[in-house]
């Protein structure tokens, strides 16, 4: 099949990006950011709290981790629920044991369905980030604008009604957005999104929204579920990442250094299993002992960064 002549024409070929969401910049050449108490690596623990209806809707697409077998998929429905019933409680205990605070990206349905869990999350001082309504509520540009707006409104109002919290941050399911999402998020008063994985520090969109980077490559979903490494292998990668970032923060041939971020994205039904949780506990013990580490929720990292801009 031949191609139209436009296929070798490039209307957006220009200096800067081929879109207008945000400006290009080299992270290593920016004004260095300073984290509190002279710490150089902000470690951001972010747990996804997800509820997968046993009736996937696939509109506009099926979320990662969703049902797999023909209906009724007891296997995946219950394995995912294991995370919310059991695995996440192990994580809460692990965080408490090391006195660290995290972010919980929460489906509104989880807040409504499991009030004891949300109460425990808030009692320990963790942050709640909005994470859509449930795992059927995915976004792409195929979703009509009014439906997307309603989805975001619904997510925030239901989450707030169930938890009493008005979140500042938003994580889309599978980090998937439409052309409109950035504007709809600011329209709803949200301060930051965690969807774009192109940077390792917060940066500002032209519409005022900030992206707080939650690296997909460092997630337990990618490393353990997709690449099939052990929990210990995953923890080793987190230590390797921390070591590199702590060294880079001091400055070298390509950067003046400054604060860095290590986002650790956790999934209760993956890392909260009995044979894996120990690797997370050991990692937390190791990281809290590192003098360079500032372990903080996303909102605190965002606030610290924002006041230095």
């Amino acid at each position: 099949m031949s191609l139209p002549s436009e296929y070798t024409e490039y209307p957006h070929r220009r200096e800067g990006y081929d879109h207008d969401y945000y400006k290009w910049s080299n992270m290593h050449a920016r004004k260095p950011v300073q984290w509190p108490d002279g710490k150089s690596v902000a470690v951001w623990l972010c747990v996804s709290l997800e509820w997968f209806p046993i009736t996937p809707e696939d509109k506009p697409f099926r979320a990662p981790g969703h049902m797999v077998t023909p209906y009724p998929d007891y296997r995946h429905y219950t394995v995912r629920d294991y995370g919310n019933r059991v695995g996440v409680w192990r994580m809460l205990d692990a965080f408490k044991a090391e006195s660290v605070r995290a972010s919980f990206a929460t489906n509104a349905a989880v807040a409504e369905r499991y009030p004891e869990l949300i109460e425990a999350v808030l009692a320990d001082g963790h942050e709640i980030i909005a994470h859509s309504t449930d795992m059927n509520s995915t976004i792409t540009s195929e979703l009509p604008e009014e439906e997307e707006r309603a989805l975001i409104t619904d997510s925030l109002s239901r989450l707030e009604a169930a938890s009493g919290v008005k979140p500042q941050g938003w994580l889309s399911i599978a980090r998937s957005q439409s052309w409109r999402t950035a504007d709809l998020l600011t329209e709803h008063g949200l301060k930051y999104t965690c969807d774009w994985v192109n940077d390792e520090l917060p940066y500002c969109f032209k519409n005022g929204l900030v992206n707080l980077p939650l690296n997909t490559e460092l997630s337990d979903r990618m490393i353990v579920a997709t690449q099939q490494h052990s929990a210990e292998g995953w923890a080793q990668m987190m230590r390797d990442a921390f070591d590199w970032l702590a060294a880079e923060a001091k400055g070298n041939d390509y950067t003046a250094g400054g604060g860095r971020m290590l986002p650790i994205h956790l999934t209760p039904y993956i890392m909260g299993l009995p044979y894996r949780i120990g690797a997370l506990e050991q990692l937390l013990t190791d990281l809290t002992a590192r003098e360079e580490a500032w372990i903080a929720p996303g909102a605190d990292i965002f606030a610290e960064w924002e006041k230095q801009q």
Partner: protein
Amino acid sequence: MIEGAPDPGLYDYHPYRDRPKLAWPEGKSCAVWVAPNLEYYEIDPPANPHRKSWAKPHPDVVGYSYRDHSNRVSHWRMADVMSRHGFPGSVSLSVGLCDHHPEVVADGVKRGWEFFSHGIYNTRYSYGMSEEQERAIIEDSIETVQRATGQRIRGWLAPALTHTPRTLDLLAEYDFTYTCDLYHDDQVQDVKVASGQLASIPYSLEVNDHYGFNVYGMSGREYADCLIQQYERLADEGERTGSGTVMCIPLHAYLIGQPHRIGPFEEALAHIAADPRCWKARAGEIVDVWRAAQ
């Protein structure tokens, strides 16, 4: 190539045993070249009926921003590690990057890297192109890289590895020296072209970081071990036979420059750099030494 034939007729069969002697400079036995892919992926490319650009409707936020990490964060990590261990890059370049982020290209120029074309964008595929369109992307590549770097490009790695039956003939006609698109050998080989000559330099899919991480799912440490084993074997063979071998390390900053991988990668590169049998070379000079020996 012979279009439509079951054997495309790209090259003659040439057994690995008893190859002619080939001496790399200073008696080295394995030429190691590092090929960073400096790419630009468009957020909203036009559709090509033969291949979809993005898995999701545009904008595919993760797909796009995952690769943009190279141009904001990880390029400098990767480039610095290479420079620190004395490896120049031979860059597989989406030439559109010269327009979008000239700072990234300029960093490679400053480090003494060689550039070859990887198409205009990694989201514009050659499948279905007319001869006129294919000539246009070749001429665009030559002019754009000349303007941005002062270099006349000598090599080609097809954009997103998409070819047409005429690509290799056109490269020879435009006086290119090498293609990186054929994976049939661990040494430089001649490619059969309609007129002139063209060499195939071993690039590698198997030790490409994309395969290591996104096909085989390796950890950074496993990938580093795999590079060392690949190098040790090729250096041993080149030393034993006197017929110099070639190892390519094809990289993407958004993969190798992730914070959990770059440290182990640096250790592997340091290991290879310290081996006296290693010739740290650019693609063009490897092909030149080989060609002169033919």
